[in-house]
């Protein structure tokens, strides 16, 4: 029998994700991929896969999965106790499952998204260079959608080393109070000085509207500069002539409830964006559950590049620790 996972319970929204599908955003196909790329990489490295191999992204509530063949697996990211046939297994460590074992999960206690990597990786077709699921477009992953009860998910098979551990200082910390670094710009000139200050001084609260497309926050109203609407923009002060949306850009429709666009972003639209999350801090956004208190902290381009270099250094140490 070929190695596979039988989905006994799908969880809330469990999707196949990998390092992503860059290069098609100009046609409205976003990069997709694991929202927390660091935790995805850690799970894959623990089981001997490439950092960007196809794994499962598990949101808020875990699935129940039956393995038809032995495998080495690892769970990283959100704190969600893995259990094999009801017995606890560690997070951020590789462990074995045997043929017929059922992998389940306890309640989410911190973070939002867990990553389950399986030795060899998940064996779904490569679509435009990636196995990631893009749900809005019904593309990639397992039939272009989250897993459902009764699905049989093929595995590439093979086992890895068991008992590998991500050192504590290389595990992503999970918190209900987070700081997210942003580069101001795009259409931030549509805000008054007061509006800009409000954006950076407010402790925003993540609403339940938080999925692979975007994360919506509540907390304050941003004051905009009065203007005559340019032709094609629309009447609302937050409207612009439909423009491309950078991944991580923060739009503020109506001046209220900023939305951080994530890796399944809509690629463009008509709302002013006032800042962009530094790419490595999209991982922090990914691990925010509703009600997470969030501050947007301004950095300039050099600050963003320094943050990126730090993340790269951390990824290098992770590879060394698990190599």
């Amino acid at each position, binding site marked *: 029998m070929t190695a596979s996972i039988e989905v006994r319970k799908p969880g809330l929204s469990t999707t196949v994700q990998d390092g992503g599908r*860059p*290069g*098609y*955003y*100009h*046609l*409205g*196909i976003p990069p997709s991929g694991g929202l927390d790329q660091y935790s995805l990489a850690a799970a894959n490295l623990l089981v001997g896969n490439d950092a960007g191999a196809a794994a499962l992204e598990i949101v808020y509530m875990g699935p129940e999965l039956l393995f038809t063949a032995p495998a080495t697996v690892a769970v990283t990211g959100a704190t969600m106790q893995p259990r094999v046939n009801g017995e606890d297994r560690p997070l951020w460590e590789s462990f074995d499952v045997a043929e017929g074992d059922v992998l389940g999960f306890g309640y989410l206690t911190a973070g939002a998204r867990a990553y389950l990597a399986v030795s060899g990786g998940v064996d779904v077709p490569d*679509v435009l260079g990636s196995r990631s699921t*893009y749900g*809005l*477009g*019904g*593309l990639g992953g397992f039939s*272009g959608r989250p897993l459902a009860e009764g699905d049989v998910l093929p595995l590439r098979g093979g086992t890895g080393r068991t008992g590998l551990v991500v050192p504590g200082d290389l595990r992503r910390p999970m918190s209900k109070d987070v700081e997210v670094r*942003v*580069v101001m*710009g*795009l259409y931030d000139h549509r805000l008054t000085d007061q509006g800009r200050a409000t954006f950076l001084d407010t402790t925003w609260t993540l609403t339940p509207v938080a999925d692979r497309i975007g994360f919506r926050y509540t907390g304050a109203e941003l004051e905009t500069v009065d203007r005559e609407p*340019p*032709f*094609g*923009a*629309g*009447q609302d002060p937050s409207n612009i*002539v*439909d*423009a*491309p949306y*950078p*991944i*991580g*850009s923060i739009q503020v429709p109506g001046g209220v409830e900023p939305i951080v666009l994530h890796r399944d972003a*809509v*690629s*463009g*639209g*008509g709302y002013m*964006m006032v800042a*962009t*999350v*530094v*790419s490595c801090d999209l991982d922090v956004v990914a691990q925010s559950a509703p009600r997470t208190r969030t501050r947007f902290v301004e950095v300039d*381009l050099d600050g*963003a*590049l320094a*943050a*990126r270099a730090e993340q*790269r250094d951390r990824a290098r140490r992770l590879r060394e620790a698990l190599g």
Partner: protein
Amino acid sequence: MSTAVQDARYSWGGDEFVFVELAEEMSLQANFRAMAITSRLRDERPDGIVDICPANASYQVHYDPDVLDPRELLAHLQDLERAVGDALDVSLPSRVLDIPVLYRDPWTTETLMRFRDRHQDPDATDIEYAARINGYTDVDEFIAAHSGSPWFTSMVGFVAGLPFTFQMVPRDRQIVVPKYLRPRTDTPKQTVGYGGCFSCIYSVRGAGGYQMFGITPAPIYDPTQSLPDFTDFLVLFRPGDIVKFTPIDRDQYDDAVAQVEAGTFRVTAHDVDFALEPFLADPDSYNARLLEVLA
């Protein structure tokens, strides 16, 4: 329709994007400049470019700062802006696509009736409202205007393969319609929609805020790549495509759907070159010549 060209506005989008606004307001010239600059950059394809996204009056470049220095990239984009200038002497390869439309179809009508509480005029349909506020005497006259001139695909996106198209007529003849007061949670696949000065075709079923005028039987996004138009790629539209909406009746619609189901349907498409200056000099004559390829 030609205006003096202002300097573009450059902005960082975090560490991986540079965003460039060519003009604050929409015009075919601003869009064509975005096309001209991004097509030059695409031809050069310097190392470290991930994606080049032209949009209506702006564009963005996704790059890898570990490979390509952001400030060098930005300086290069400024060079390209100067080289393209007002884009009047630029000609770009394009295609004319004939898109059949069943206006006032039963599916978008059923959908719009479910969302009257989110609409400016709950007592009218979307197309009746659009006809009225744009000064047309009736819906037939409005349809004649919507299907009478070609449209320029100024951006592809929002969701997979969705074209934003801009009416190729002088501004005083352009149709302008506000979006819904609050977005719908449902829009049929292949709905021909309208918001602001853009007509669009929804590529997938889902949420939407554009007014709904009709539906096309022509698939524009095929993730399974089973139809002949999608052999090379799963998205039909490219930025810069020129669209002709052709009204069809229910029998023609059903016939086209049968062809889609049989796997034989093809959109009629012809390669053309589009140049800005002759178009701006005499849009109606230029459009008539463009559409001759469909005759």
